[in-house]
């Protein structure tokens, strides 16, 4: 009996300890979100910590973000969370939007539709007025339904499916999947990179199969020969030797990989061990491959990818962004980070264009911003003169990047 009591007490102690840790780190997490400005030393931001004490009337735009910060796609969610934080800090330091500061909060959805709805509702309880999210496509389709109901203005940094847009209140900062597929095929043909192409894609992923479908259509139209179309699923993504062997025996000199970097790194390793050396061509999901743990980055030499952002581009905006990001979070930002940074600045631009104020209701703000969205043009990290159509699709020029000497280099 005594033993049981002591065990119970120890457990209680341990639990409070964990709760304590969780709490403090949770707070520091929100501090990161609310104003890591303390580090940057700008007092305008520090004031923002106390929920908008910085403006005369105490009002602030409440921008929420949703994305996976845990789980398989955590690297994207974290990148978006961090980059948006940088943009928010910069804007707040420069005096905010129309003189109002931004309150920013990011919630985890583990890239699951149901959890994403929970995250959205939780942000709504917090008082969110504008949504920057969600990061991944499937949850986004579910959340779009809710923002449409509430009339909330939403801009997604990276949910690229066409199923996301069309509601009138949802805009994308990234290319749509069909766009990526078409652009990739076009790029390969225009630069005559290959004659025989093999594709390895994830048939259980919306993103991957979406790009694959349009790539095939465009390739057929352009006369590009597809010799192998090999699929894998989320359950079988550890061994790709069969798919690679088929591509090799079909004589493909280019392998198109419309997949995420985690699987791509395995494919590159396995192709290397079987002595198969085609050109590998990826899309924006490939971005991040140099950050994979225990991956020999020399294998990624010569891999091409179509992405709107290259971290070593020489323009001032990119340089400043990359150095701030590195200073604060320790790694080189990927394209998701860049899209998120642009998304926040797009929100700034559209709020200014619509002359909106934080005291407007969510749906008033939604109507005003959606109306102004087609009239603005934003110069950002991922493109110059980005404009939006009424459907929500962005128009900007894709850039191709090649991995050279362990870094992404613009082509």
């Amino acid at each position: 009996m005594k033993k049981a009591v002591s065990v119970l007490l120890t457990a209680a102690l341990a639990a409070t300890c964990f709760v304590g840790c969780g709490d403090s780190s949770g707070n520091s997490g929100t501090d990161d979100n609310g104003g890591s400005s303390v580090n940057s030393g700008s007092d305008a931001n520090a004031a923002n910590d106390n929920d908008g004490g910085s403006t005369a009337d105490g009002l602030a735009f409440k921008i929420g973000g949703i994305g996976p910060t845990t789980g398989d796609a955590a690297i994207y969610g974290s990148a978006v969370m961090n980059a948006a934080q940088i943009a928010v800090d910069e804007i707040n330091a420069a005096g905010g939007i129309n003189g109002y500061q931004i309150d920013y909060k990011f919630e985890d959805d583990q890239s699951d539709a149901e959890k994403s709805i929970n995250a959205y509702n939780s942000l709504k309880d917090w008082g969110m007025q504008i949504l920057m999210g969600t990061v991944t496509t499937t949850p986004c389709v579910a959340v779009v339904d809710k923002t449409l109901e509430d009339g909330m203005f939403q801009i997604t940094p990276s949910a690229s499916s066409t199923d996301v847009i069309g509601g009138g209140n949802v805009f994308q900062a990234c290319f749509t999947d069909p766009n990526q597929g078409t652009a990739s095929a076009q790029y390969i043909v225009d630069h005559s990179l290959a004659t025989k192409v093999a594709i390895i894609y994830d048939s259980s992923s919306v993103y991957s199969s979406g790009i694959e479908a349009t790539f095939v259509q465009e390739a057929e139209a352009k006369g590009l020969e597809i010799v192998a179309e090999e699929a894998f699923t989320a359950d079988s993504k550890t061994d790709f030797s069969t798919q690679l062997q088929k591509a090799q025996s079909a004589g493909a000199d280019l392998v198109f990989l419309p997949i995420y970097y985690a699987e791509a790194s395995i494919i590159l390793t396995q192709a290397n061990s079987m002595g198969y050396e085609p050109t590998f061509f990826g899309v924006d999901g490939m971005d991040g491959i140099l950050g994979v743990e225990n991956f020999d980055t020399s294998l990624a030499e010569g891999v091409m990818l179509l992405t709107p952002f290259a971290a070593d581009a020489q323009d001032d905006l990119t340089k400043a962004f990359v150095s701030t990001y590195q200073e604060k979070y320790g790694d080189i930002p990927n394209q998701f980070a860049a899209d998120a940074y642009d998304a926040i600045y797009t929100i700034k631009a559209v709020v200014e264009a619509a002359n909106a104020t934080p005291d407007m209701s969510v749906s008033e703000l939604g109507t005003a911003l959606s109306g102004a969205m087609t009239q603005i043009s934003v110069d950002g990290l991922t493109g110059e003169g980005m404009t939006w159509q009424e459907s929500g699709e962005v128009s900007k020029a894709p850039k191709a990047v090649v991995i050279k000497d362990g870094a992404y280099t613009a082509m």
Partner: protein
Amino acid sequence: MAKSTKKLIKKTTANQLITLGMVVAVYIVVQIMIAAGVMSSLMQGLLVPMCTYSIVAIGLNLCVGYLGELSIGHAGFMCVGAFSGAFCTKLLAGTISNHVVLFLAALLVGTAMAALSGFLVGIPVLRLRGDYLAIVTLAFGEIIKNIINVLYIAKDTDGFHFAISDGNSIRLSEEGVWLINGAKGITKIPHLSSFTAGVILILLFLIVVYNLVNSRSGRAIMAIRDNRIAAESVGINITKFKLMAFTISAAIAGAGGVLYAHNLSTVTATPANFGYNMSIMILVFVVLGGIGSFRGSIIAAVLLTLLPEVLRGLSDYRMLIYSIVLIAVMLFNWAPKCIEFRQKVMARLKKNAGKEEA
């Protein structure tokens, strides 16, 4: 003797009525809270998922607690229900405008399809002795997910288009719509689920399982669970009753799936929502709530759906806390020392109450 039996029956009936009453009471309280505007959006958003998981847990409890067979593929039946239900809705949405009728149709189709798949899986497996059902249901759950991921069905002016794995072969005309689009699953499902519908379904299935368990068939099912040979020797058709319980269990899971699909505007067959982990999660609801106790299943499903969301404030640490809480609850429920401790406390409370009465 006769008197005590009578009393016993009354006790179980009373117990069942308490469970039903609890559900109704919670429903009324929630409705009042919503009307008073004191319920947060997060909680309101969680109501339907709570109902969904409660329903599936009820279904699985019938299988695990009364049939005595382990199924780790109930997410697979949920998946069948979700997809066939949503498919039906997409198909009929143009012709039926009444939401209640539309949802009922989806519910019927989803439940029937899940029952059918449960029946088909059960035919070969339930004839065997041993834990084969666990293995086969596990495989079934994975297979269903993969089949749906390669299934392409579309409709346009030329009629229906079908394709397996090669979605690119379907060229749709302008006004064509995708019904199931491979990995993209079914999108733009009308939002038909509601808390009221969920609670009605919970009540309905509780009544169904309570009646089943206390019927002649239910006693036969439990007899098979307790001693197969003895049951066989008194002439009980083992396969028939096993199939019956398992099919009903799968059907209930399917109904849960229909509710799930119509709560989100999109349903995809990913490992996160219909995979192995989800099946285990449902099993956890059943085990934590107490095997054989439907009330426990509902309470466990509600609490465990709520827990990670309530812990949101802890940011990334919440999954850690969540698992610690799981272990703590498991120990509290099942550790012999804990049971002893609880009994002692209960005895002392009763004693005190008795003294006061005296």
